[in-house]
C-alpha cells in the first residue's frame, strides 16, 4: 500500500534527496491491536505478525510492551517506528525513575506525551507510521486511549487499530460491559481476533493477550486460536455463482 505525500517545488533531483529524510510509506507492518477495559484493568490483544507488503514475513514480533509500572503500549503500522517510539519512552521512563521521588508516570501522562510526539512529527511531514493503543491502571483508575499517526487521540472503553476498527469494534459495541471478568474479557477479545484472523489477510494465527492491572503487566505466551474451515460453502465455493 503506497501513499506519497506530494510536496510541490521546482527541484526534481533535490526532492529525492529531501525525501530520503522523511517517512513516505511503511515497509514492515503489524496489523490490528484490540483492547478493552475490564473489571480489574485493561486487556489487550495483538498477533505476532510483521508483513512485508503482502508477504507474511515475520512471525515473532511482539507488538505490545509494558511502559513503566502503570502502562501498556500496543502498536500497529511500521515496526521500526514502533521500536523508535519504545526508545523515546525508555528515555522518558528512565528520567522519570532517576528523580527517585515517589512520583511515577501514569498512563494518562504517557498517552499525552505520545500524542505530542505524533502530532509534532506529522507537522513536519515526517510521521511515525503507527496507530498506538495506550492502556493502564494507576491508583485504581483505568485508562485506555489511542493515538494515530496524524496525532488524533482519544480515550474510550474499547479501542482497536486498522482492520480492528471495522471488524472488532462493532462486536465490542454490542457485547462490551463495564464489569467483565478476566475470563469474559479474554473470550470477547478472542472472538474479535478470530474474526480478524478469518477476514484480515495480514493477520496470522499466533497471538498474545496482555493484562494490565494495579499489580502490573503480564503478557501471555503466544498461542493460536481454533479455527473452523469445514463450512459447506468453502468445500465448493463457486457452486451457484454466476457464470460457473
Amino acid at each position, binding site marked *: 500500500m503506497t501513499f506519497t505525500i506530494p510536496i510541490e517545488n521546482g527541484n526534481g533531483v533535490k526532492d529525492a534527496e529531501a525525501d530520503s529524510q522523511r517517512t513516505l510509506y511503511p515497509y514492515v507492518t503489524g496489523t490490528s491491536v484490540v483492547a478493552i477495559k475490564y473489571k480489574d484493568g485493561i486487556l489487550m490483544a495483538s498477533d505476532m505478525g510483521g508483513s512485508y507488503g503482502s508477504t507474511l514475513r515475520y512471525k515473532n514480533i511482539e507488538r505490545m510492551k509494558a511502559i513503566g509500572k502503570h502502562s501498556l503500549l500496543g502498536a500497529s503500522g511500521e515496526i521500526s517506528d514502533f521500536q523508535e517510539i519504545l526508545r523515546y519512552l525508555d528515555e522518558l521512563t528512565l528520567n522519570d525513575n532517576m*528523580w527517585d*521521588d515517589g*512520583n511515577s508516570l501514569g498512563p*494518562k*501522562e504517557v498517552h*499525552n*506525551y505520545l500524542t*505530542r510526539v505524533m502530532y509534532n512529527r506529522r507537522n513536519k511531514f515526517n510521521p511515525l507510521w503507527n496507530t498506538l493503543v495506550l492502556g493502564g491502571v494507576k*491508583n485504581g483508575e483505568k485508562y485506555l486511549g489511542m493515538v494515530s499517526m496524524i496525532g488524533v487521540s482519544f480515550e474510550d472503553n474499547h479501542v482497536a487499530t486498522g482492520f480492528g476498527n471495522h471488524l472488532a469494534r462493532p462486536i465490542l459495541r454490542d457485547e462490551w460491559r463495564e464489569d467483565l471478568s478476566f475470563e469474559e474479557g479474554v473470550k470477547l477479545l478472542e472472538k474479535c481476533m478470530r474474526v480478524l484472523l478469518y477476514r484480515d489477510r495480514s493477520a496470522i494465527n499466533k497471538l498474545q493477550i496482555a493484562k494490565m492491572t494495579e499489580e502490573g503487566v503480564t503478557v501471555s505466551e503466544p498461542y493460536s486460536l481454533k479455527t473452523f474451515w469445514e463450512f459447506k460453502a468453502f468445500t465448493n465455493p463457486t457452486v451457484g455463482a454466476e457464470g460457473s
Partner: protein
Amino acid sequence: MFRNQYDTDVTTWSPTGRLFQVEYAMEAVKQGSAAIGLRSRSHVVLACVNKAQSELSSHQRKIFKVDDHIGVAIAGLTADGRVLSRYMRSESINHSFTYESPLSVGRLVVRLADKAQVCTQRSWKRPYGVGLLVGGLDESGAHLYYNCPSGNYFEYQAFAIGSRSQAAKTYLERRYESFQESSREDLIKDAIMAIRETLQGETLKSSLCTVSVLGLEEPFHFLDQESIQKVIDTFEKVPEEEEDAGEGEAEPEAAPVAAGTGEQGGSGDQDVAPMEM
C-alpha cells in the same frame, strides 16, 4: 558583615571553604519583609506582610500563583522573585501541556534549585537574591519547600523567612506538631498569628497581610480582606495566655507595646533598601 578579600567574585572560595557572595545573597533574603508558609496533610497556607515603599504607593506583590496546585511566597529582591516565578509558571504549564497532568512540587523545586546553583558557579553571574517558599499539592500529598539563593532546598512543615522571621519561627516551633492534622481554618489562623509575631507590637490589620490557600479540591487563591479580618477578630479580642496583655483592640497606634516573646529587640523599622521588600 565584614569585608574581606575573598568576597568580590562568586567563583572565589575563601580559605575556610565559603563562598561569600552566596552568603551575602542569603543576607538579602533576611532583609526582605516576612513571608510564612505552613502545611497540613491536605492544605498549604502562604502568608506575608504587606510593606509599601511609602504611604502613597501600593504594596509589593510577594505571593504568586504558579499553577492551580502550586503557589510561591518570596522574600528579598522582589525583581529576582518575579523572574523566578515566571520560570516556575513556565515549567508548570509546559509539563501540563505535554503530560496533561500537574507537575509534582518536588520536581519543580529541584529545577528551581538547579537554576539557582548555576548562578553560584559562573563568574559572570550573581546569585538570585531571593528566598522562595514553594507550597503545593501533588499526588504524594501537600508539600512546603524553601529554596535558598545557594541552590539548596529543604522541605518543611512550617517556615518563615525575611525580617523578624525569627519571631514567627519561634511561634511555629511551638505549634508545628499539630499542623499535619490541622483543619484548613486552624492552619489559616496559625499563619495569621505567625504574621502577627513578626509585626512586633503593631496591631494586626487585614490590610497589613496577604494570605493564600491551596488544598485538595481547592485551587490556589488569595483570601479576601474580610475573611482575613474575620480570623483576626477571633483572636485579637481575647488576651493571649502566652503573650503579655496589652495586645487587644484598644490603642493601636500609641507607644508600641514591648513584644511579649523575647527575641531580637532593637530592630524597629529598618531602613529598607528601595529594591528590597
